[in-house]
């Protein structure tokens, strides 16, 4: 299986099964489009456009790739290597929030339940749970999440120390992340986060207008003016350590490229902008009719990224950063996000869900910290739904990049874990094409510098 695309005056072919990516000339692109069986049946169409010598050379170059098994490679005859082992946990330390963001999948923090904070005792139980159930995995990840985790920061602080103290006893290494709206950030908390956390994700949607339309305080005021200076101070303190400014775009505001540019103008360099997760019919839903606009926005963002590349104004955009040589292995690409198996989410009450986006839906409650995971059937459903089994994925060129997409999106839109959210797929494909084009740009610039 191959995928052909062109973007910004360059053509590419992806050999899906091997993951190899080749930049190709116009004539190779046309041959693979018109004559993918390489039967030389469409010579006339080609000869109207190219010299015969070029066509012959292009055929030879393609044949050479095929002979070297770098194009039209066989499908991967592989099964998932091992039953996955728990290694990551989304720890919802606060089902409460000090903002009332309209799109929040956590229903403004409480996940359709009552507002609550995780006790230190439950938090320790959760840390013990991952330590004791992570087999021979060394690196464990805990994302302090909510709601708003800074509303329960004393528990966060205690749990960080608790985990660190337990590391040598279990031969484990914790990587901590915190995802926050920034309202309660201050110097003291940032110092702690900088000391112990591998990553901090700060939620901000873009311009004041965009952000304040959705991200409001409890009194209905926009949050931009309050959080931006705090986030700027936080990122300055972060120095070389990892952080992300993470925005959300919705059907109500599709022009997110301007928002990314604005975030960069605020001094932030590590950026992410995600499509909203909604139920079908929600007023913020990104609809199929919006797809062309969304793709244009990714093109605009691509252009901005390319213009700024290697300059003082450069930035990283999460979905454009694909390492084509040192990316994840095939097993990981098949296993996908690992929800329900490698990754779980824990509520303040100690309930276990396959991931943070299923919290509140009792039919996805898979266990408790006291009982452990008891609903193995649901756990198995998540495991079984992968790119090798999902019909839509089997035929898709992007399957080894997205690994089947988000289970929660699939379920919320199609009530079926085995049926990917099509809009999400289309957006992902566009992002991958932009990422590959930017990689080609980077390679070309390096080659030009070398000469």
């Amino acid at each position, binding site marked *: 299986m191959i995928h052909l695309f062109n973007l910004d005056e360059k053509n590419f072919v992806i050999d899906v099964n091997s993951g190899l990516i080749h930049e190709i000339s116009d004539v190779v692109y046309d041959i693979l489009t018109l004559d993918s069986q390489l039967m030389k049946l469409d010579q006339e169409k080609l000869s109207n456009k190219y010299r015969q010598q070029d066509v012959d*050379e*292009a055929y030879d170059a393609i044949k050479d790739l095929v002979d070297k098994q770098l194009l039209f490679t066989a499908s991967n005859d592989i099964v998932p290597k091992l039953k996955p082992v728990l290694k990551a946990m989304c720890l919802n330390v606060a089902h409460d929030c000090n903002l009332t963001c309209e799109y929040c999948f956590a229903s403004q923090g409480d996940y359709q339940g009552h507002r609550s904070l995780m006790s230190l005792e439950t938090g320790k139980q959760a840390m013990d749970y991952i330590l004791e159930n992570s087999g021979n995995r060394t*690196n464990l990840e805990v*994302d302090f999440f909510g709601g708003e985790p800074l509303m329960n920061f004393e528990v966060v602080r205690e749990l960080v120390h608790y985990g660190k103290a337990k590391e040598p006893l279990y031969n484990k290494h914790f990587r901590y992340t915190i995802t926050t709206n920034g309202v309660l950030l201050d110097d003291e908390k940032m110092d702690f986060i900088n000391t112990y956390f591998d990553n901090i994700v700060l939620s901000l949607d873009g311009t004041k207008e965009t952000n304040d339309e959705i991200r409001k305080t409890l009194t209905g005021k926009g949050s931009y003016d309050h959080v931006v200076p705090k986030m700027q101070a936080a990122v300055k303190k972060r120095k070389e350590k990892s952080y992300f400014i993470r925005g959300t775009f919705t059907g109500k505001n599709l022009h997110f490229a301007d928002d990314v540019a604005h975030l960069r103008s605020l001094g932030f360099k590590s950026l992410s902008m995600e499509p909203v*997760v909604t139920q079908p019919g929600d007023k913020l839903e990104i609809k199929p009719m919006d797809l062309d606009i969304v793709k244009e926005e990714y093109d605009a963002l691509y252009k901005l990224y390319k213009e700024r590349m290697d300059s003082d104004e450069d930035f990283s955009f999460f979905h454009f950063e694909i390492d*084509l040589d040192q*990316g994840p292995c*095939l097993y990981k690409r098949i296993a996908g*996000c690992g929800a329900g198996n490698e990754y779980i989410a824990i509520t303040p009450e100690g309930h276990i869900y396959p991931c943070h986006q299923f919290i509140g839906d009792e039919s996805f409650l898979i266990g408790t910290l006291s009982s452990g995971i008891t609903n193995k059937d649901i756990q198995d459903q998540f495991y079984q739904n992968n790119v090798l089994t999902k019909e839509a994925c089997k035929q898709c060129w992007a399957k080894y990049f997205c690994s089947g997409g988000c289970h929660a999106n699939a379920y919320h839109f199609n009530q079926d874990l085995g049926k990917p959210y099509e809009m999400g797929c289309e957006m*992902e494909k566009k992002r991958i094409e932009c990422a590959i084009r930017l990689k080609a740009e980077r390679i070309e610039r390096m080659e030009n510098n070398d000469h």
Partner: protein
Amino acid sequence: MKHIKSLTTKKLSHNLVSKGCGECQTSCQSACKTSCTVGNQKCEK
């Protein structure tokens, strides 16, 4: 480039015996939290 320039050299099937250690980052723990992009994770090996 006359006709073809390969941007990648390693096949996904390369050296599979040593792969699948599971030590890499879980994709949803990174920046997204809402859309799965496994392809931009890093291999730990």
